[in-house]
């Protein structure tokens, strides 16, 4: 919760010495509140005030960074309960489980899938984020070898799973520089795990038997100097886990309850007997507030829908998803194929390209950059109008791909056809259907 200037002023020395660059403590406080100054500019602020100010200005749910390098990801940092209020900040991270009870072939296969399964969508690369490595055997040497093997085979972020500090320490020997998440500190081992985390500056997962216990545990870890915490409330039934996710986020955001102000980790892999059900549980957690989801395996048919759902939920509601502008070739078009034009709003693009595809009519689709606005909205905003469309068509390079000069525009853009015929010399402008679902019939008619 941000403090007001007056609240901050009360914590300052009130000597008006001017060392901070402004003449009075009050002026400095106002600048701090407005984010225009750093507290460190005042050399006289007391340690106590510093702690209070830091606490008060900390985000209600701590953003926690896991991993290093290109596959680093952040979880937490969320500020709202509903995505229409403000963007959900950090997409739920997806982890695949590997244990030291698995065969070498199985381990290699899982790491390969983790590395290989990526999906391109609206110009983004979607993939799983982490490998969760679990010690089943309780043998530190075995764990160390497994972690080393995996760390060499992938640059993905790592989660080390054991409740034995010596086992986690064995794993850390070979991957501490990768900043893995240590899972998990419990009431029984909190001191030892906190020590490991401090020495290796790694984030820690706190696992309680209930929300109450986990809140107590994060306070203990905090006192032990650990602030990068991810929490597991211990729930493994769908109903309890769902409820915990909502209560954890709600109490952090609405009650400013610090002990629960952390991202969460969830385990669909321990909540279902089969991969399909597990996938559904994971999809629930994407919508409702999990920071990390650990899956028992990676199957393409599970991962693909899950990462697309995640993309949808974590899209900025103020900034529509946009696809890359340019020429899209659908159903192998040739120089005689029809040319359609639409905007780069992703939903528009998916609908129009999907309908063209299902028509089976070879076509070119010109996707124009309208800053992610739909046909109607872009038109109203003056971004999908005759002169801009004409310039785009000329520059797109479509004229080199076709022999004819006919352009099909969306039905909702009919008013632009006159202007377009002027702007695009020698082109015939045809008004297509208003609704995407009528495109296949329109294209087939054209052909017959």
């Amino acid at each position, binding site marked *: 919760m941000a403090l007001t200037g007056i609240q901050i002023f009360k914590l300052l020395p009130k000597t008006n010495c001017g060392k901070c660059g402004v003449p009075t403590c009050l002026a400095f406080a106002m600048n701090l509140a407005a984010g225009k100054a750093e507290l460190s500019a005042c050399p006289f602020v007391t340690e106590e005030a510093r702690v209070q100010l830091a606490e008060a200005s900390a985000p209600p749910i701590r953003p926690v960074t896991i991993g290093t390098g290109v596959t680093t990801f952040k979880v937490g940092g969320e500020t709202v309960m509903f995505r229409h209020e403000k963007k959900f900040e950090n997409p739920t991270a997806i982890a695949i489980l590997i244990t030291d009870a698995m065969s070498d072939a199985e381990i290699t296969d899982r790491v390969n899938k983790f590395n290989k399964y990526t999906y391109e969508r609206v110009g983004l690369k979607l993939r799983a984020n982490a490998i969760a490595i679990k010690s089943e055997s309780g043998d530190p040497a075995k764990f160390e070898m497994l972690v080393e093997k995996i760390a060499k085979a992938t640059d993905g972020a790592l989660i080390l799973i054991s409740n034995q500090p010596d086992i986690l320490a064995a794993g850390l020997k070979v991957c501490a520089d990768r900043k893995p998440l240590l899972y998990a500190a419990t009431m029984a081992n909190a001191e030892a795990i906190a020590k490991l985390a401090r020495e290796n500056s790694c984030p820690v997962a706190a696992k309680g038997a209930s929300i109450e216990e986990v809140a107590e545990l994060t306070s203990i870890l905090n006192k032990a100097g650990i602030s990068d915490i991810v929490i597991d409330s211990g729930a493994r039934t769908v109903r309890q886990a769902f409820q915990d996710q909502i209560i954890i986020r709600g109490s952090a955001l609405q009650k400013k309850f610090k002990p629960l102000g952390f991202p969460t980790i969830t385990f669909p892999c321990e909540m279902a007997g089969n991969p399909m059900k597990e996938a559904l549980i994971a999809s629930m957690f994407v*919508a409702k507030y999990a920071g990390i989801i650990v899956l028992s395996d990676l199957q393409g048919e599970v991962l693909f829908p899950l990462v697309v759902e995640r993309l949808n939920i974590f899209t900025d509601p103020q900034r529509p998803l946009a696809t890359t502008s340019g020429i899209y070739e659908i159903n192998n078009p040739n120089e005689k194929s029809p040319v359609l034009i639409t905007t780069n709003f992703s939903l528009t693009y998916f609908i129009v390209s999907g309908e063209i595809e299902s028509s089976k009519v070879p076509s070119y689709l010109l996707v124009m950059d309208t800053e992610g606005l739909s046909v109607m909205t872009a038109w109203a905003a003056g971004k999908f109008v005759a002169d801009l469309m004409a310039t785009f068509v000329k520059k797109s390079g479509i004229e080199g791909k076709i022999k004819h000069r006919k352009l099909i525009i969306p039905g909702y853009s009919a008013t632009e056809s006159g202007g377009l015929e002027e702007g695009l010399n020698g082109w015939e402008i045809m008004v297509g259907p208003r609704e995407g679902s009528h495109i296949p*019939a329109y294209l087939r008619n054209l052909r017959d």
Partner: protein
Amino acid sequence: MAIEIPKTPYSGKVREIKLGKEAKTITVGGENSFPFYVFEGAMPHKPRIAMEVLDSPPQEWPQAAIEPFVDVINDPITWAKKCIHTYGAEMIALQLVSTDPNGMNRGADEAAAVVKKVSDAIDVPLIVWGTANHEKDTQVLTKVCEVCQNKRLIIGPVEEKNYKKIAAAAIGYKHTVVASSPIDINLAKQLNILLGNLGVADDMILMDPTVSGIGYGMEYCYSVMERMRMAGLTQQDEKLQLPIICNLANEVWKSKEVHLPDNENNMGNAKNRGILMEAMSAMALLLAGGDVIIMRHPEAIKLIKEMVADLTAS
């Protein structure tokens, strides 16, 4: 450690609506908290899944979707019966795809006769869905209302462009209407008001916010539904306190990814991919506030019913 648990200040509840024939009605709605927040309120009636039946054989379905119905796919009556008796359907949604003017363009009389036969053959609630072609739906759905008098069908989509005639017929012949608006909370509310002004009782309306699935992008409908629920439950917006119906099935099964073969683009098994895309989409819609979801694949439905049972388990 004692937890400070936030309480949402609810001030309203979703209207309870009875669907289906007198002797065998199903009630939907009635929840007075956000979806599945059973620790804050009550969800007296679980969300329901309506199984989809087409009035003419499907043209573009992938193998995975045809397979469960391959023996009945040419006959909507046996198809509907199979859904009920083999797959345990609690409701049927009959899609009048044959009436599409850009397709078979079947006439209103013929289409309505098929609806009548299906309605006579089953006793679970029957949803009848047109093609969203305003003129054609007006002809077809008014005819359906008349021919199926007193069958208490659920008729949709009824849109701002064509609500008058269809809703009037629904009032006259005692059917529930599906008020359909284009992913916009204000237009949804406005249509409910217009229907009210025309004389449609509030307990004869379901809202259709126009949904999409994973594949096309769910973010818009997801948020519009959440906002509808928020308005109805916490802002006393009575005109948005109606149960929400989501016509999901085709939105998923028409997407490109459902049609890709096994292992293409690292997308795994084609059949399971389709099932999961449908079930996960339904999961998100239920979490956003759906009360009735129209679905296609029996295995996707089974998964979703399990999730609903788990989420509402005591």
